[in-house]
């Protein structure tokens, strides 16, 4: 492995930690980055299920939503609970993991297709439940405001756009850069946690299961339980991402934020980055969601200023966004199916010629 390959992840984290101190830093950009970190957490959660255990999960957004609304219910004044964010986030992880287990446990003894269908259906049901259970979720208004955060000394209702770096850190403490650091640290922590998980007995067992379920069973591995573990870890982490999402926005927002499109885009992030490869998934999410949330707006503004094309959707990059996503995915699948940063074992899986695959005892997919 080259030096770049070995050190780019710590380097990236160091650069991101340094960003708020740089003269070019902007509060609004920092907040956009914060949301990107949340999505990176969500993609890493999905990667546990798809990349590690090899189960196609099409409803990760539901667990993102369950995490966000758990935090909402436990912290907003609308409900009598009024817990701190730390308690609420822990509850979000547990609730999401338990719901994940309950929703998918019956499918794990069946073929993989059923798992994909059940997660897809569960995602849709959850979205409609959130939207229509007005008495609990406040429908499209969303639950707000979310808890004032675990640390004291936080001022609220600060006009962020008026602030530059160096001004009044105390006033800015609550959202940016405070939340920026909290969520970036959580992302770093989850990266380390997942690295240890990959190297653990459980991580090794997932690889064996993905490679050959029959042989793994003969070695004494319990396939149903291993898959359930992946689903629970994935759902729990997605719940954590949802908790941070609600915290960063200070509201659970519009239920549309937890719809099927998000589940699909997360699958795209995982595939773009490299199935099963942690740093790859991180990079894929930052690129794809960065393009989605930040670059398209910048490009739109630039095009308007330079060329004055009028306001039609076809003159904006944002109008072509989904076509660009689709094209990128097709190009990736054709020329680099293992993703930008392939996980070594997955790469071998995808690049092997068919006869080698048969020769090495590869099971039919």
């Amino acid at each position: 492995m080259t030096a770049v390959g070995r050190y780019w992840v710590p380097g990236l984290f160091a650069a991101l930690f340094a960003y708020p101190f740089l003269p070019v830093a902007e509060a609004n950009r920092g907040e956009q980055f914060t949301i990107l970190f949340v999505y990176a957490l969500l993609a890493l959660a999905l990667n546990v299920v798809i990349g590690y255990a090899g189960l196609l999960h099409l409803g990760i957004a539901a667990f993102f939503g369950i995490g966000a609304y758990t935090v909402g219910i436990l912290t907003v004044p609308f409900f009598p609970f009024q817990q701190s964010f730390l308690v609420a986030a822990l509850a979000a992880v547990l609730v999401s993991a338990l719901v994940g287990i309950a929703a998918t446990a019956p499918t794990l003894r069946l073929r993989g297709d059923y798992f994909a269908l059940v997660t897809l259906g569960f995602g849709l049901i959850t979205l409609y439940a959130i939207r229509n259970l007005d008495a609990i979720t406040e429908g499209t208004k969303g639950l707000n405001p979310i808890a004032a955060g675990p640390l004291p000394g936080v001022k609220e209702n600060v006009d962020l756009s008026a602030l530059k770096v160096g001004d009044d850190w105390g006033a800015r403490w609550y959202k940016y850069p405070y939340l920026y650091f909290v969520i970036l640290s959580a992302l770093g922590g989850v990266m380390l946690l997942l690295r240890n998980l990959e190297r653990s007995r459980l991580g090794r067992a997932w690889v064996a299961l993905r490679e050959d379920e029959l042989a793994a069973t003969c070695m004494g591995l319990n396939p149903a339980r291993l898959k359930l573990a992946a689903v629970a870890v994935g759902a729990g982490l997605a719940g954590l991402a949802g908790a941070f999402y609600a915290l960063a926005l200070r509201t659970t927002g519009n239920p549309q934020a937890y719809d099927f499109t998000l589940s699909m885009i997360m699958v795209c992030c995982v595939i773009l980055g490299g199935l099963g490869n942690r740093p790859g998934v991180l990079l894929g999410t930052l690129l794809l969601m960065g393009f989605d949330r930040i670059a398209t707006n910048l490009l739109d503004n630039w095009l308007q200023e330079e060329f004055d094309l009028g306001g039609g959707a076809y003159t904006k990059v944002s109008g072509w966004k989904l076509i660009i996503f689709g094209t990128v995915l097709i190009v990736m699948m054709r020329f680099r199916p293992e993703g930008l940063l392939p996980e070594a074992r997955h790469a071998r899986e995808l690049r092997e010629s068919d006869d080698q695959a048969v020769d090495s005892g590869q099971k039919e997919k």
Partner: protein
Amino acid sequence: MSAPLLQVQDLEAGYGAIVALHGISLTVNAGEIVTIIGANGAGKSTTLNAVCGVVRARRGTVTFDGRDLTRVPAHEVVRLGLAQSPEGRKIFPRLTVLENLEMGAFTRRDAAGVKADIAKYYAMFPILEKRKHQPGGLLSGGEQQMLAIARALMSRPKLLLLDEPSLGLAPQIVVQIFDIIRELNKQGMSVLLVEQNARMALKVAHRGYVLETGRITFTDKADVLLNDDRIRAAYLGEEGH
């Protein structure tokens, strides 16, 4: 003689509407090599899979070491001392040789013992040590078969189930694999061997069973079967004398 290590009685198993085994019975005593020979589709692999729980028995019993296995889930069977090396050398192609061996010891908690066993099988199969950091899928067919056998042994089984160890291997490699089986047996390992290569299997085994379309049609000492005219004609490719 004490009770057999493995006793299969009146075992029926199948897939959906297809019945693959119509009530077969067989025994393996401790220290024996027993072989099941038969043509493609006779139900040999199904027998092994039903013994170790991958395929559920519909009728009959499988008693191993005094315990009924018919209700034990497949992943628990290995803990009871029954290890299978599945057909087609189902090694983990993208795990390294060493990782494959460690996977075979998944149910064990004694790290030192596992390490010692890995060293033992490296000594028995030197090629595996030479290639310990290579992915299993890059090994040759014979090396993969050695890895599959070593991996099965890593669980310290009382009985080793081998499904078609000669499948797709060159003749001199087949001889080598059967030498290994004989050597393991000399060290005390009991083996249930399923084979299409009837001649090699009967030469190494103590006793044999002939399986035809889900029924056992002959059983005897291996050398008797090897000299039986009907067996010679049907499975050894020779004219009856």
